[in-house]
């Protein structure tokens, strides 16, 4: 666990689009998270391998440099055990299946809203206390 019950939980938003990072960061900040951003899968892997720890990672599918499935697979190989939530545009079922199998806990459709993430956040808060 990245944070104790007195601290804010930490979320990493991995997406190449500024608009999505801005919206998702704000949504999670309102939900009580400290947020950090990565522009592609490789940045997320580099952050975690340099010791950054998160309670939850929101991972885009299609990104330059390194896509979501490869980054998720590498993070799981590095024993990153936090929740990793895939966030996708409407994409082919095969691609989503591959993404899930790379080690996602869940996969949600963009854009995230409070209603879409509330049960995940509640689950996280319950495991923390």
């Amino acid at each position: 666990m990245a944070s104790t019950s007195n601290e804010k939980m930490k979320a990493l938003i991995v997406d190449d689009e500024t608009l999505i990072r801005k919206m998702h960061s704000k949504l999670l900040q309102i939900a009580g998270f400290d947020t950090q951003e990565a522009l592609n899968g490789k940045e997320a892997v580099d952050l975690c391998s340099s010791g950054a720890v998160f309670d939850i990672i929101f991972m885009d599918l299609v990104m330059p440099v390194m896509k979501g499935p490869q980054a998720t697979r590498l993070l799981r190989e590095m024993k990153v055990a936090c929740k990793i939530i895939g966030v996708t545009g409407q994409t082919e079922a095969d691609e989503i299946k591959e993404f899930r199998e790379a080690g996602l806990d869940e996969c949600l459709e963009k854009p995230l809203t409070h209603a879409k993430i509330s049960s995940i956040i509640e689950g996280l808060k319950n495991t923390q206390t």
Partner: protein
Amino acid sequence: MDVNQLQKRFIDYTTTLVQEGFLDDQFNQLQQLQDESNPDFVFEVVSVFFQDTDRLLNELGKTLELQNVDFKKVDAHVHQLKGSSSSIGAQKVRNVCIAFRNCCEEQNIEGSLRCLQQVKHEYSLVKNKLEYLFSLEQQILAAGGSIPTWNE
């Protein structure tokens, strides 16, 4: 005009944009992310949408002009535009993107060019309307008021 009248005009105008189908509920979701600590949030996000869309439409125009059209590239641009327009709730732009992607799948050049014209048209309409909404926002803030949230 006093603050109350400006706020009423803001709500009425937003409601009209939703009724006419230019915006959908996602715009409301976006407005709910804006608070007093960040009163320009919607404007900031929509400005990013304008920048991205100007760039994508320019790229699409260039890509579709080439002798051998790379439909994979066209589809990737349209996919991105569809994602960003859904994220801010620009419903009519998003709907044209859906038709545009079908043309890409069929490798239909004429259809793609027609969709590009339609998407440019819808984008310029919603851009003008959002710019008017932001000018109302600025007047409300300058008059010391807060931005009301539209609810369906």
